[in-house]
């Protein structure tokens, strides 16, 4: 059998298994699986043993290829999703600060939430968005949502739908236009924020559904940032938290905290230490911490075990790579 035949056969097997699993799902043959504690521990031990085996191979001078690393990353992320092992999530001071801000606001406060990300960053930011919105609904805050990224407002709608379902809220409990509104997206990056400093309506003449600004009870009396009590920015890059700090906070005196992707979070620490930001939820770990504070445990909490495992595997491979480096007198180039 040539290589192409083998590839096609593997693909066919995967397709058939997928169809079986899918049919099982829609017909209720299975309801998803969770590994028992014993099986979970056995798998963890096997995984650790195989990594030690790779280390031994490396010490003996046999180096592994990159596809093996790919495979281990896939395993380290997938297996923990089936495990039911709880971990203690530590809440950082920066996350506590965001929650404390919400605790300090009176009911009816108007909060501006900017969704500056796209689906690519949703696994990190969507859980934060859901927990934040849920907490605001619990405290009867009024939410004005918008986006400097075109996909942001759609992510906002999804977050509202999801959290309302999870909290058992209906459209009668939380009324669109009175309790929350989605103003949509506008181009112009930092210039949008700059213009909002003078007039919200000039940038958002209608909401995301085309309803005129003046017909929306929640915002018709909101002229600019001076009518906003607090703001929260969910950001995955440019335009995002940096621009909100520079214009919204430093120019117009907005009080701002943010939820960032882990890639962006380290870059906003100087703003946090300088008091330009009042709190920070950085990455999925902080997202899980915020879920813990709000008691709205969701996907971030669920994914923490996979996050821990994948970090351990990367550390293990960095260690193995360094062993190979020192073993070969600091000259070795590893297989591509």
């Amino acid at each position: 059998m040539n290589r192409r035949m083998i590839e096609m056969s593997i693909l066919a097997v995967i397709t058939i298994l997928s169809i079986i699993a899918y049919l099982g799902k829609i017909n209720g043959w299975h309801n998803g699986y969770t590994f028992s504690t014993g099986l979970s521990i056995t798998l963890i031990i096997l995984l650790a043993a195989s990594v030690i085996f790779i280390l031994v191979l490396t010490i003996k001078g046999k180096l592994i290829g990159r596809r093996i690393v790919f495979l281990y990353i896939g395993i380290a992320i997938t297996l923990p999703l089936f495990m039911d092992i709880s971990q203690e999530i530590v809440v950082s001071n920066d996350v506590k600060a965001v929650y404390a801000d919400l605790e300090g606001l009176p009911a009816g406060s108007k909060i501006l939430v900017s969704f500056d990300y796209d689906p690519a960053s949703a696994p990190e930011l969507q859980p934060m968005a859901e927990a934040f919105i849920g907490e605001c609904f619990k405290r009867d805050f009024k939410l004005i949502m918008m986006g400097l990224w075109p996909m942001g407002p759609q992510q906002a709608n999804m977050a509202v739908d999801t959290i309302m379902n999870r909290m058992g809220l209906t459209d009668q409990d939380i009324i669109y236009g009175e309790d929350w509104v989605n103003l949509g997206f506008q181009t112009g990056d930092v210039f949008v924020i700059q213009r909002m400093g003078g007039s919200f309506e000039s940038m958002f003449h209608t909401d995301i559904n085309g309803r005129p600004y003046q017909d929306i009870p929640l915002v018709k009396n909101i002229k600019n940032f001076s009518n906003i009590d607090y703001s929260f920015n969910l950001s995955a890059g440019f335009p995002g938290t940096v621009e909100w700090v520079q214009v919204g906070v430093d120019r117009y005196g907005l009080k701002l905290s943010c939820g960032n992707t882990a890639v962006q979070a380290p870059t906003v620490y100087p703003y946090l230490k300088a008091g330009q930001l009042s709190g920070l939820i950085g990455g999925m770990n902080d997202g899980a911490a915020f879920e813990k504070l709000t008691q709205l445990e969701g996907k971030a909490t669920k994914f923490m075990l996979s996050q821990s495992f994948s970090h351990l595997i990367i550390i293990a491979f960095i260690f193995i790579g360094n062993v190979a480096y020192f073993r070969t007198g600091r000259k070795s180039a590893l297989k591509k």
Partner: protein
Amino acid sequence: MDHFGIWLAAFLTLGIYSFLYRDNAWYKLSESIFIGISAGYWVVILFWDNFYAKFWLQRQDDPMLWVGAALGFLMLLRLIPKIGWIARWPLAFIDGATAGLWGMNFLASNIMVQTKATIMPLMGPAFSGSIGDLLSNLVLVGGTFCGLIYFFFSKEHKGAFGNAARVGIWTIMITFGAMFGYTVMSRMSLLIGRIDFLFRDWLGLLK
């Protein structure tokens, strides 16, 4: 449930992942769909949110928007080579506006405020801090100062200046290390999201 939709999403997801094995037609097909869909998405969104909601609905209340629309139209003339040079006018506008607004924003927020935040009492306000706070603040102030010295290339990095620059590069290396750690965290989170989609939303194997 949308059976076709979820299978299509899974097909495209796996198509992108097939690149891990090697470059192939499945990956290229998925990539091309992504390019086409994204470009179409942007045009639709910009039409409704910007040209329609921002310009068309407000053009009578705010006639000055016509100037913006005219400049925007000039930008599109870049597609006609003979008169493409006229697109420099809106480009010049973008350059001027960006330089003016960004220049002031960075001056105020990233230079003035950050410098002010670095010049602080090492023991905290009214000497309320501990020895630990003192050492931590020294790291913050010294690290920032030495980091800036490292970026100063008009003087040779020798002697005391060179030593300070060396401390600066150490600080910057710690920063890069932390950023790397956070980048790993971010990338893993995104991958977890996709694996969750495949095993939970598509195949229903996860509880």
